[in-house]
């Protein structure tokens, strides 16, 4: 199993540009320069400028490519990136007079591995270089679309580079999720961690258990239909992004209870049965029958290998109050240790997931509470205090780790907090080389308590971009001033591509956000 992860840091892609070269004086270095984000593994850029004309430029399959025009994934990408490069310029300038000089007429894309045009990206997939190419292109002060002759070798440092969105605390309309996927691709993120349900609402429309969203969503229009989910998955696939759903249990499940009677634990107060409900009831068989059927559906709906099972912040007080659970604890010899009860629940759930041939990701509590995890299980480290020690512990026990503790983007503060995210090094913990290999990446998390469609985009971008570069670029890419200069340009590029990314600091973009 493990070779798969290290394999992801393999040969990488080669992006080589050569134009129809004419013996002309190369343009003197104009003030505008391309700004790559995230920074590639290696960049060699010559001062020699090539110009691109919208009417005379195409992105095509290379002669040696294993992919051909039947590959819709690439065809779609070619069209998209052609538009990013020219679409916005032509709108402003019409047909600009083309200047003399060496011209770049074609970008050849060669894929060397077996074609995966119709499959889904996985943890071992290679990455597309079109984004990098589009970032190399810039407009000089005359409005000419220009690119430097360049040679770039690139591959990601970590295989799992995720963004978490939370559609339970606030519902996010489909459009905003798709927009987020666009922006993720601009930043070479490759995992959408979709925290789809939680205490507050259950917007996922289940085919097997339609009552879950009928009763558990905020309203009947605050749901994701099977078709919505398919659209998200396909939009993501076309951008090389995996969609990893999270169905967090046994805590964070209040909204499940409305549509699935008997699933949650009834909490008791001293005198009689109270109205309130607690975590999933782990002592009744019906719970596991339900989970088996439910996750069977999930494993079909979401093609990704991984399902996030949550397992965080289980409140034991409700379990403790319930006489049936007390009896059960006694019978099983768990004493007063509810972690044992939690462990039992999670263990059975992991078994269900494994039987569906899926892999599991869990929040760190599951590991902390001593649940026995199968090798290959991924532990997501989210607690800020002592997160480096936690990484040491998780990887020491041979489990894979994802880091998100320092990257909770919902925690806002005044000023340039992206710097804080940028200086994190996920491998700074003490551990062997092999342990470091077990860290497969990280995630920027935008929890939804105070975030909905009104503020999602400016709160996410470009702050998440800092995490994007940390997870993609080599470890030694740490010059924060250089990062600032590139990120300022990158955020303007996002704005121009229709992403309302907020400013890093005082200044302006040539093309401001259109309202």
């Amino acid at each position, binding site marked *: 199993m493990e070779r798969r992860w290290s394999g992801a840091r393999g040969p990488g892609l080669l992006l080589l540009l050569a134009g129809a070269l004419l013996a002309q004086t190369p343009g003197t270095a104009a003030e505008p320069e391309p700004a790559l984000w995230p920074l590639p593994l290696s960049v060699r850029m010559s001062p020699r400028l090539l110009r691109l004309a919208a009417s005379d430029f195409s992105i095509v399959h290379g002669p040696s490519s294993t992919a051909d025009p039947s590959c819709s994934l690439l065809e779609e990408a070619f069209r998209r990136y052609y538009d990013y490069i020219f679409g916005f310029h032509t709108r402003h300038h019409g047909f600009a007079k083309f200047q003399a000089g060496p011209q770049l007429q074609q970008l050849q894309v060669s894929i060397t591995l077996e074609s995966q045009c119709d499959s889904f990206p996985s943890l071992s997939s290679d990455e597309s270089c079109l984004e990098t190419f589009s970032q190399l292109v810039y407009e000089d002060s005359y409005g000419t679309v220009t690119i430097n002759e360049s040679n770039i070798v690139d591959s990601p440092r970590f295989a799992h580079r995720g963004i978490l969105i939370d559609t339970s605390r606030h519902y996010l309309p489909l459009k905003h999720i798709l927009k987020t996927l666009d922006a993720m691709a601009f930043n070479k993120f490759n995992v959408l961690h979709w925290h789809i349900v939680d205490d507050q609402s259950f917007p996922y429309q289940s085919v097997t258990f339609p009552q879950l969203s009928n009763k558990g969503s905020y309203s009947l229009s605050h749901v994701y239909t099977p078709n919505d989910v398919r659209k998200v998955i396909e939009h993501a696939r076309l951008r090389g992004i995996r969609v990893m759903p999270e169905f967090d249990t046994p805590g964070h499940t209040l909204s499940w209870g409305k549509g699935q009677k008997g699933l949650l634990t009834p909490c008791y107060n001293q005198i009689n049965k109270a109205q309130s409900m607690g975590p999933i009831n782990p002592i009744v068989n019906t719970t596991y029958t339900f989970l088996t059927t439910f996750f069977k559906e999930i494993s079909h709906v979401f093609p990704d290998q991984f399902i996030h099972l949550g397992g965080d912040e289980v409140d034991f007080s409700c379990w403790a109050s319930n006489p049936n659970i007390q009896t059960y604890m006694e019978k099983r010899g768990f004493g007063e240790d509810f972690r044992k009860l939690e462990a039992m629940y999670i263990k059975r759930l992991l078994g269900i997931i494994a039987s569906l041939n899926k892999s599991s990701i869990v929040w760190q509590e599951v590991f902390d509470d001593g649940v026995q995890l199968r090798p290959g299980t991924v532990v997501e480290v989210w607690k800020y205090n002592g997160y480096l020690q936690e990484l040491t512990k998780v990887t020491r026990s041979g489990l894979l780790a994802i880091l998100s503790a320092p990257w909770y983007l919902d925690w806002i503060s005044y000023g340039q907090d992206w710097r804080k995210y940028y200086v994190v090094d996920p491998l700074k913990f003490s551990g062997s080389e092999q342990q470091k290999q077990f860290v497969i990446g990280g995630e920027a998390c935008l929890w939804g308590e105070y975030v909905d469609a009104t503020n999602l985009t400016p709160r996410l971008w470009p702050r998440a971009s800092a995490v994007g570069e940390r997870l993609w670029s080599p470890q030694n890419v740490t010059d924060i001033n250089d990062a600032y200069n590139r990120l300022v340009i990158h955020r303007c590029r996002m704005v121009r591509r229709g992403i309302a990314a*907020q400013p890093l600091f005082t200044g302006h973009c040539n093309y401001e956000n259109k309202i």
Partner: protein
Amino acid sequence: MGCSCCRLVFSLLLAAALACRAAALWPWPQYIRTSHRRYTLYPNIFQFRYHAGSAAQAGCAVLDEAFQRYRKLLFGSGSWPRPSFPGKRFVLGKEMLVVSVATAECDEYPTLESAENYNLTINDDKCLLLSDTVWGALRGLETFSQLVWKSAEGTFFVNKTRIRDFPRFPHRGLLLDTSRHYLPLSSILDTLDVMAYNKFNVFHWHLVDDPSFPYESFTYPQLSRKGSYNPATHVYTAQDVKEIIEYARLRGIRVLAEFDTPGHTLSWGPGVPGLLTPCYSGSQPSGTFGPVNPSLNSTYEFMSTFFLEISAVFPDFYLHLGGDEVDFTCWRSNPGIQDFMKKKGFNDFKELESFYIHTLLDIVSAYDKGYVVWQEVFDNKVKVRPDTVIQVWRETVPVDYMKEMEKITQAGFRALLSAPWYLNHITYGPDWNDMYKVEPLAFDGTPEQEALVIGGEACMWGEYVDSTNLVPRLWPRAGAVAERLWSSNLTNNLGFAYERLSHFRCELLRRGVQAQPINVGYCEQEFEQT
């Protein structure tokens, strides 16, 4: 009292908020009585109409346009089927809101002194809005629009209600900064709309500052040509400015323009050579520039001409002249300034600053303008006219802002509070709570001193804000300040405010405003990107 009146006494506020639609008002009126008795509004026939005895009649732009706006806000822009009442009217309905104002100021500008009080009576006999001025009528129309609600079946209702309302403070401002980041015209106009929904009445326009000079001056066109981010795209033309002023006027909002000097002026330099102080390192100019050069006559000639234009362009009686954060190091380094200091017998750069400000104030008052300045002008003991308005922005230095309010009013000056209301400072969670809890008169002072507090401003400085994040960062947070400045000091229950503000933010979404959530939950109509 067996009727279903929503008696909104304090202990019942929360219960009332849940039980009664009218309780969703923001900001909360001074006096309100409302009941469950309700009247139907039919979108196809409902209209606003002038009372026969009203001083303003059809043709009054301020109200004519407001009637149109509020019809659209209430019922949307769709066309409604013709009325078809089967026989007699079997439900209690209202066909119109009758509006009557005592004085017509339809072509004038709102001022600091404008009355904004209104009475709204909706009962079996009447649906009547009474006010002294058109500005008060605007406030009443907004309240009326918040009273109307829609049943699950889609019927519009308004409850039997009596409201007597007036603002606690006459100056309720919102500051936008168009220098750190340029804000497109549409962002400013949209903000004015939402300000009106919140009953704000002053748009404090911090037009220019160190980073850029987007104001296109016709006397000194070089200022924006050289000082803006981009003279073709990142400027406000004379037409833009006019449009903003008129758009604001129609919503009863004053435009208070700020041209901050002598500090915060780096962007002025390229367009007006010689205006800024050249900084020296040793005996040589270092190439950098500092504040406006107060030692040259040419400076005052420039200011005189420039502010003549500004006084004409901005109709409001008040101009904001800034005067904050003057850095003395550059002045200190400049030999010309050192000579000037000697000649004038100044020992302290505060005296030099005072000299500059004093001269500037004389220039501006000669144009029949009043002025607002930041608190440093007071702190540095600049001699100012007694009718100067001092704006308090520093939270703890030199003294706690409440102490500063006390000192300013003690000295007999009018004061504006903004220190606790810097909306650009963001933190995790419901930070509107703290802004809401501020009591502007919580200082030791006589009633006369308290009367000198004319209001406050919520400030959205632009270092980290542009059109990408302005709206969600402003709303509904600025709403907390709006209510503090409009409503009674007794309207201070956080739970009651929370219920209403949650509701109000959904109403803002319904009106197309990208207002961010204040907690988990949902709105029937979520924000949809277009």
